[in-house]
């Protein structure tokens, strides 16, 4: 897995992250979303956590992850001279309200893999401005790993190890699923384009005609837009 990851980073750096371009832009948007998402998840943990000391520590971390997201926003603006448009993907449920500690376990894994990945990108010699920001973030993330370990320290070791293993497996599965989705996406795309160029022309006239008379005078025509009563099942 480590080897594959390193290979991926090296390839991406060579072909996409060396110079400003659409792939680099896409990556910055993704990195921004990841940082912002960790800030949000930690905020949810903070709301659930009962211990005031832990709450205060988490609050600091929420702000730090939020700052990381901002760092990518600033970097994007610096490189591409426009505002980064956030991804806004649906938030995933990482833990149940009664099991905040599972969130810390999740963060532990997330921090570790982000720190490793960022370190690889720095090593592979990416765009210099990106490198500068990543260096700053990697230092913080290493601190977060230690903090997550402290938060997890008070729990039974076997439970934590089992949870960490479960999350690692889940992430691994997810990355395969993502690849699968990507592939099906490509097939779907080709089918759609096939349809579009194959028989799209036959419908384009009808479609255009629909836009020519697009005004309804409902009263004059004696028609009313009647609300269909829902079938209510009790």
């Amino acid at each position, binding site marked *: 897995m480590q080897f594959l990851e390193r290979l991926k980073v090296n390839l991406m750096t060579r072909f996409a992250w060396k110079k400003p371009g659409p792939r680099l832009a896409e990556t910055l948007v993704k990195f921004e979303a990841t940082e912002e998402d960790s800030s949000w998840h930690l905020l949810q943990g903070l709301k659930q956590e009962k211990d005031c000391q832990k709450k205060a520590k988490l609050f600091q971390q929420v702000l730090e992850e939020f700052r990381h997201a901002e760092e990518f926003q600033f970097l994007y603006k610096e490189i591409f001279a426009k505002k980064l448009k956030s991804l806004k993907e649906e938030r995933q449920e990482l833990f149940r309200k009664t099991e905040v500690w599972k969130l810390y376990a999740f963060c532990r894994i997330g921090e570790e893999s982000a720190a490793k990945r960022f370190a690889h990108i720095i090593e592979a010699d990416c765009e210099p401005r990106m490198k500068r920001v990543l260096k700053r973030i990697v230092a913080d993330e290493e601190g977060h790993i230690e903090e997550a370990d402290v938060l997890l320290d008070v729990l039974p070791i076997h439970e934590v190890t089992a949870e960490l293993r479960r999350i690692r497996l889940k992430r691994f599965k997810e990355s395969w699923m993502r690849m699968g989705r990507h592939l099906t996406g490509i097939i779907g795309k080709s089918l*759609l384009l096939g349809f579009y160029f194959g028989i799209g022309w036959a419908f384009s006239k009808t*479609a255009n005609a629909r836009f020519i008379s*697009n*005004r*309804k005078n409902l*009263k004059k025509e004696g028609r009313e*837009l009647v609300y269909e009563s*829902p079938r209510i099942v009790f």
Partner: protein
Amino acid sequence: MKVLGLSFDYHDSSAALVVDGSVVAASLEERFSRLKHDANFPKQSIEFCLAKAKIDKDAIDVVAFYENPSKKFGRVLAAALASWPNSAKEFESSMSQWLGKKLWTKTRIASRLGIDPKKVITLDHHTVHAAQAFLSSGFQESAFLVVDAVGEWATTSIGRAYWKDNKPEFQFIRQSEYPNSLGLFYSAFTIFLGFEAMNSECSTMALAAFGKPQYVQKIKKVLLADGNDYKLNQNYLNFHRSLQLPFTKEFTEEFGSPFNGKYSFSSFEKKEASEEEQYYADIAASVQVIFEEAVINLAKEALKKSESKNLVYAGGGALNCVANEKIRKISELEKFYIPNEPGDGGSAVGAALLVSARSGLCSGTRDVYTGDEVEPLTFIDQIETKELKKFRKKGLTSDSPLSYSSKTLSDKDLYVEVAKACFEGKVVGWVQDKAEIGPRALGNRSILFRADRRDLALKVSKAIKDRALFRPYALVMNQNAANQILEESDSCELFEWMQLAIPVKEKMINEVSSGVHIDRTTRPQIAKQKSKIDKLLQEYEKMSGLGCLVNTSFNESGLPIVNSAEEALMQFARTDLDVLVVGNQVIVKEFRC
């Protein structure tokens, strides 16, 4: 009967729970997810609604979705095919979204909630808008007007709403359909002015005040008048290919390229703008005039054809408070109502109310504080304030505090203490009880400060909200102050919910200058008597002689209004906000040991 209303997949997802005709809970998903205008499935809002009503998903009788996906799919498909063969990319991206997800909304809702698909129904979008306005208006009969970007096909609807056998009827008189859309027309120019569509239409309205409407005739070539109706000239704007970049070659030849930069206009200080900026401001002013003309005509037609003296108004267009005030002035109009959240964010409420009312259950509630409730912060003393210095917003020039101090006060002391802080020129974050649904903070998630100090307005724009200086602030006032400040006022909801731009009396301008726009108007909130914000204003009046403060939504640029105390504390820590009030807890920044 328990009806869950839902809206998602476009912008401003939301959920609302109506039990026996009353809204029990409603919230925009963005308030939980912290993603502004979040369009995803409103999972957390649904959980919040069910928890609030203390019911399980199985207790829901009907789930009502705010539009009809298959009808909408027809429109999206037709639009994508209309520009064949030049729309391959757009066709592919919209179809993969629709075929992969959006078209199966009913099944998606059922499977995500784990309920019987038969319980899920989809409604006509403009009927939902009409219902969201009429059913909370309390009117017995009324004309209705709906103006938004686009629903399934409809973009503008006028009609008559009334009660028959204890059930509401919505009789549509006339409808305009895509692409002839006033909303899309306004949004297209919003993009042209350098802002984001479906987000910054208010910036277009604010910018308009700095311009002269000298391009009205020219822009009327884009939106062609057709009696009371209008047609969009597709030689200039083509939405089929992209809602984000609809400008044709003819358009850019006539009007130039979209603005790219930062406007130097300011609502708070004298600033010279470049010729180029002035041009775009003049365009904004002209677009605003055309929009106003169009909605006034539509409102008049709705009143006339429905033979009513009442009007209810909904859809995103109803967020334009300058136009709203002009509609209010129509002489034939007696009663006028706009729901607090007239846009798609409020359509979950509309959908749920509609289904309930059709079953004979409608209580006509108008509560706007239907969101999540705030809880006090327990960890202020544990925060290592000095450590937070590095997370402060970039560019702040002020000192970083050494510590935070927190105290909990009695009700009476609270109002005195906070009024005093405001009087001393502090900027106060004010978080109370349940959050407001809708885009405006109405005194439960607000930032408050003195109205007669423009320097404070500048501080809030630059060091707290990160907001463009040409965007004005609004005023919250008690009835006494309203009588002194506003050219006219009324006790209706329009004045309670900041839905109108009202001229300020000349002699009062200096007293409230930081909440008045360049055109001498303000969007007032006249505080509901005995509400917490009203009590605060009464105390403030004792000190300053005028019960009026500036009230702006508690958020940073790009983020939704804060929902919880923790989010409020984040902004407090990151910015130059001086005081944070959460319920009766007052937190201040200390700069000395």
